[in-house]
């Protein structure tokens, strides 16, 4: 089983979910479950920190798109933290850099919100 790290913390009213490892069809359901759970608990201002993600494919992107839709439906917001070129590249190719607010640090993400 591939390890997917999911570590939750709090920053200025935002739920910060730090993800580590590889996000693919094997691990994405755990990420989806966690994000759906947060929204279910009323946490609709979420930062997903992808700095320690080694790999993400379209299944992982789909989970993030789904989470963005859920928080916006609940008048919340979801921001990403990502500086790794290999991860940013898949967001750029799919045009999702225009959909997500992508920041360099968690501080930048929470301040921007």
């Amino acid at each position, binding site marked *: 089983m591939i390890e997917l790290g999911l570590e939750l913390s709090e920053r200025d009213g935002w739920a910060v979910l730090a993800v580590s490892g590889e996000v*693919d069809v094997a691990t994405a359901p755990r990420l989806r479950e966690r994000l759906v759970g947060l929204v279910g608990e009323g946490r609709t201002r979420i930062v997903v920190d992808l700095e320690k993600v080694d790999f993400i494919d379209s299944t992982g992107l789909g989970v993030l798109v789904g989470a963005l839709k859920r928080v916006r439906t609940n008048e919340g917001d979801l921001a990403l933290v990502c500086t790794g070129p290999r991860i940013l590249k898949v967001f750029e190719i799919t045009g999702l850099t225009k959909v997500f607010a992508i920041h360099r640090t968690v501080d930048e993400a929470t301040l921007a919100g």
Partner: protein
Amino acid sequence: MKHHRISLRVPAQPEYLALVRMVIAGTARIEPILDDERVDDLRVIVSEACTNAIEALRERGSDPSTAAITIECHLTDDAVELVVADEGGGFDPGGLDVLPEVTDPSRLRIERGLGIPLIRALSDESEITSGPEGTQVRVVLQATEPPAV
């Protein structure tokens, strides 16, 4: 001309995807004709193609304990060719839904459908053939030009 060929046949289960990516990336590094960025592209491509295969076999109702995906990787002096094949129900590659523009709010309703565009964008050549017997995804990545000195 040197020529390496490896062939994998793995169960069509998500848990094997990380292993497949590792083997394919390792194979591509046997002869360093792709730089690290292009090897990363190859990892995404093989992951997308195998994910589609797993879903096709699942939709066909194939027995997950026996359904398999075949992955072949050919290395020559000037290119890496990857072929991923399944025995799922196939689909019409020309009939894929056109995704709304990313700035269109309805785009957020679409959580799938990004895999094949990624395969096409990250490869130098791509060919998807599909029929009732299954689907074959073939991509080619040309050797990376050595950096100018």
